[in-house]
């Protein structure tokens, strides 16, 4: 194991051994256990990024709340966006057990010191995007998240279990929305295809850089934080999604996508990594807008937080 690298001079070797034994037995690390600083730092980065993604993820779909075509669709979308907020809160709580405050986390999101998933920097100009996000984006999220239910850090795993139970509703409502549109007019079918064309590649990018360019993966797997590599999960998502696309009657926009009998898996084309890195580094279509919106909500809510604190203080005295 490599955790020893993190052991600062003076760290009790018994603590290190106890940590490594827990990890090697696939037991869980809990908040008050000793852990290497690198393990803690990696978790803070990963869980916070995940939490921020849920919070920012409310925006692309929130865009359609007041324009949903029926009361039924509006109620479903409201419930889904509320879930995203809830998921963000579960994950912020898990991050806080590692000694970071909620306020610091919000500030790191707004300042850009911490990232969120690049997928939420794409716009949602079409109502079909609500369905496509549920199907592809939440589908990709599920692929990523199911193995994280067994992650080595207890609070993170428990948050993921709650989240995964709810994500299934997200994916199914999206797919059902798209099925409904595909049974509609030619124009509606074209809307679905156009939306899938825009979201397919960004969905594949959600799994992160290819394994060759993912320097943190090996260490994260040794620590039991991650259970599979980015490319393994991406392949699993492609294999799951192809038959769903066929059932839906849409084409996935990749001329190289085909079944490989020998590998018993789908081959698919190369991701545009320049686009991926551009969006990660802040140059995507909506990066500035998403963060500005979050900052505005935080600033505009300041008086509410203050008023609630003042009320609580007065009642306590």
């Amino acid at each position: 194991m490599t955790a020893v690298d993190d052991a600062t001079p003076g760290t009790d070797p018994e603590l290190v051994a106890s940590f490594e034994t827990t990890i090697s037995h696939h037991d869980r690390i809990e908040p008050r256990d000793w852990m290497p600083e690198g393990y803690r730092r990696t978790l803070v980065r990963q869980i916070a990024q995940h939490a921020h993604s849920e919070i920012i993820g409310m925006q692309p779909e929130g865009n359609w709340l007041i324009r949903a075509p029926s009361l039924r669709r509006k109620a479903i979308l409201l419930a889904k966006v509320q879930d995203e907020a809830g998921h963000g809160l579960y994950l912020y709580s898990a991050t806080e057990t590692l000694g970071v405050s909620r306020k610091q986390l919000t500030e790191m999101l707004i300042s850009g010191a911490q990232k969120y998933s690049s997928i939420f920097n794409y716009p949602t100009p079409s109502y079909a995007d609500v369905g496509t996000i549920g199907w592809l984006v939440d589908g990709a999220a599920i692929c990523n998240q199911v193995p994280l239910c067994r992650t080595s850090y207890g609070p993170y795993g428990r948050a993921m279990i709650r989240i995964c139970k709810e994500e299934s509703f997200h994916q199914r409502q999206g797919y059902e929305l798209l099925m409904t549109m595909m049974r509609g007019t030619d124009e509606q079918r074209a809307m679905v295809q156009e939306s899938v064309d825009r979201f397919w590649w960004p969905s594949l990018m959600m799994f992160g850089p290819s394994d060759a360019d993912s320097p943190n993966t090996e260490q994260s797997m040794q620590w039991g934080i991650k259970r599979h590599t980015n490319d393994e999960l991406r392949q699993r998502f492609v294999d799951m999604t192809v038959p769903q696309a066929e059932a839906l009657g849409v084409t996935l926009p990749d001329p190289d996508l085909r079944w490989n009998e020998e590998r018993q898996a789908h081959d698919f084309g190369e991701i545009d990594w320049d686009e991926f890195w551009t969006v990660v580094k802040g140059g995507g279509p909506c990066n500035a807008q998403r963060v500005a919106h979050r900052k505005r909500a935080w600033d505009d809510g300041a008086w509410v937080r203050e008023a609630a604190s003042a009320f609580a203080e007065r009642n306590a005295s």
Partner: protein
Amino acid sequence: MSQVRAEWPLYEVFVRGKRGLNHVHVGSLHAADDQMALRHARDVYTRRNEGVSIWVVRSSDITASSPDEKDPLFAPSGDKVYRHPTFYDIPDDVPHM
């Protein structure tokens, strides 16, 4: 913009899944006071009928055992195997034991 006072305190949330079960810890949240903590707990942790009763308690009011004293604290139960029914050999043909 005026300075926001200190952060809202942290609360731990416990939910009784249904009648007859214990309250179980489900997570934590921030709230300005106890009543708000209860409302937030409802919204965050029981959106799908996960509970029939909620407890919230300030995290700072919880006293916890330290992981460092794990062995000494729990040792007294570790060496008292005679507290377990399996400690006693009873012939297989004795019924209802």
